[in-house]
């Protein structure tokens, strides 16, 4: 790949219309809301009702410029409805939301100009080539003609599809389509990129490559990423996450802080006599342990400091030991009282609710 044509990067010149949103704030995502910085997304008391059903029941949050913000929750918890309100696709029943400093109801066009969208379902035209899809997007967003080509090349190279630009989108795999959508969402240099379940239904390799684009984006472009996911392991990559359950935010912090808030590490031991070990734990340490996945499992604060005492005082032979830090699964569990998988299994009806909501939005 040769050097860039120097002329092509000329439009980098400062643009008065773009206030310097969060310059360099990605270095301190947690404290980006400092003096002079405008929040990328600011939500107050957001509610969405569909008839009797309250899909989103009063949400408040603030996303700092340059941050990668994750919206975590089971299907049907109100993630998509919230993101649709922030993207001006759904009108809030009450409350307000500012995206890139503009109101999502009264300044709809301003918001739209400043955001990029990647939805769960593909919104590409399969009968056009990859390049035609992007060109169409550039025209709809009024991207200046002299930079379109260079910018198109840049975003397509980023997702590794430049060589396939002349292929019909219908011939693409699911992962390629999603990558193309991400490229298209970035084409007009949005300040906030909304990703609604960007990795759902993709194979692990594509999933991790999408995450590598996202981290690349954070370093190369001055952009805020707002994403929804119901994969716990992916939420780890976010600077901060909000856990949403049944239309409400139940927790909001950095993944590390959330995990710390659970307070205990998980210890799993294998012993000669599990029942005796459980009894001994109760008697000598006042710890309630359970047998889970073939091991005696319990939680204690500062697990590794507890181990020497455990070996010395348990009085039962220990064959193996496993200490783990709390995962976001544990966090979700401690805030909602259920695992995300169980929440999804019982949320079959809210899935229906969401589909109905989607139909009504058409």
């Amino acid at each position, binding site marked *: *790949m*040769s050097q*860039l044509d120097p002329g*092509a*990067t000329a*439009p*980098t010149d400062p*643009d008065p*219309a773009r206030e310097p949103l969060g310059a360099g704030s990605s270095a301190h995502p947690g404290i980006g809301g400092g003096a002079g910085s405008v929040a990328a997304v600011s939500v107050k008391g957001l509610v969405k009702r569909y008839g009797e059903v309250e899909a989103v029941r009063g949400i408040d949050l603030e996303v700092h410029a340059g941050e990668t913000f994750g919206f975590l929750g089971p299907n049907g918890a109100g993630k998509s409805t919230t993101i649709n309100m922030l*993207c*001006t*696709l759904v009108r809030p029943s009450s409350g307000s939301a500012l995206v890139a400093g503009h109101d999502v109801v009264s300044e709809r*066009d301003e918001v*739209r*100009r400043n955001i990029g*969208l990647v*939805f769960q379902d*593909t919104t*590409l*035209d*399969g*009968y*056009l080539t990859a390049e*035609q899809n992007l060109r*169409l*997007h550039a*025209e*709809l*967003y*009024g*991207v*200046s003609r002299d*930079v379109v080509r260079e*910018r198109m090349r*840049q975003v397509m*190279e*980023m*997702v*590794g*599809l*430049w*060589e*396939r630009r002349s292929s019909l989108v219908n011939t693409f*795999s699911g*992962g*390629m389509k999603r*990558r193309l959508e991400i490229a298209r969402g970035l*084409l*007009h*240099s949005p300040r906030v990129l909304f990703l609604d379940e960007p990795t759902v239904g993709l194979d692990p*390799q*594509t999933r*991790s*490559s999408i*995450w*590598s684009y*996202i*981290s690349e984006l954070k370093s*190369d472009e001055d952009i805020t990423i707002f994403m929804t996911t119901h994969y716990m392991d992916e939420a780890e990559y976010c600077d901060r996450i909000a856990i949403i359950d049944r239309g409400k935010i139940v927790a909001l912090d950095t993944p590390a802080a959330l995990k710390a808030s659970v307070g205990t590490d998980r210890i799993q031991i294998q012993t000669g006599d599990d029942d005796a070990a459980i009894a001994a734990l109760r008697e000598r340490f006042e710890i309630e342990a359970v047998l889970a996945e073939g091991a005696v499992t319990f939680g204690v604060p500062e697990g590794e400091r507890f181990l020497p005492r455990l070996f010395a005082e348990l009085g039962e032979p220990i064959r193996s030991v496993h200490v783990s830090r709390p995962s976001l699964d544990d966090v979700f569990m401690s805030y909602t009282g259920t695992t995300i998988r169980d929440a999804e299994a019982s949320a079959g009806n809210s899935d229906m609710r969401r589909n109905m909501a989607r139909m009504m939005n*058409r």
Partner: protein
Amino acid sequence: MATETATVGTEAGVAQGGDGGRRASGPVARVHVPARSLRSELRAIRVVWRRELIRFSRDRLRILTSLVQPFLFLFVLGTGLSSLASAGTHGVNFKTFIYPGVLCMAVMFTAMFSAASIVWDREFGFLREMMVAPVRRSSIVLGKCLGGATVAAFQGLIVIAIAPVVGIHYQLGLMLELFALALLLAFAITAFGVMFAARINQMQSFMALMQMVIMPMFFISGALFSVASLPAWLGVLNRIDPLTYAVDPMRRAIFSHLSINPAARRALDPGVTWWGWHVPTLLEAAVIAVLGLGMLSIAIWEFSRAE
């Protein structure tokens, strides 16, 4: 994990050509989306229009299939009924007589299919891409209608090209007049289809509606018979049918370029009357245009209202 896996599987490995090459594109080409202006709206209209053309040219099969039914009418029905009809046609070829109706039919089918693609786009999600763009919905709808009109008029051009087969010789004036009327009709029918497509979520429903609307419009319009002495009920329906105002001026244009005796002309090409008053060609064209614009406005209103 995210940063370690920079290469992306089979499709991407080639494209990236190693990390070093990719880093060369370090400086970001900043793009800026300008505030809404007439120019940006025109660009939106143009790109939506172009998309229709690209999609139509990709779909060769559709070009053929939408000609099947009109040609069936022209060549099979036209030939089959010609001996039966010969008593009333005063020696004029029956195929020549039904030709304008067949031309309209070809245009209508293509225009409705173009409008149907909105339903398709909605089902496959692409409509969302257009609906969230920072442009007026009216620009999207207008681009769509102009695209459908262009494509349908092109289909009309194919039918116009076979005119000599049914005894109509090429004459520039006539061909231009036919084409202009076909274009006008194409626009009106696309607007009509888009107006319904705004409310219909399923392709099947739209197809059913299309069948329900197109065939009656075609039959009532006088495409296959003379509107001279119809029973009162059919006469009223005929004057209400918008297609009447496309078939009639086309037929008048064709017949005025053929050497036909006045009696035949009177019987086959009596012209449309409103309470005994002959409606002139320009007014007929205006009827189509006004209907088309009216339906376009409704379509724009419907799409602007949708969230």
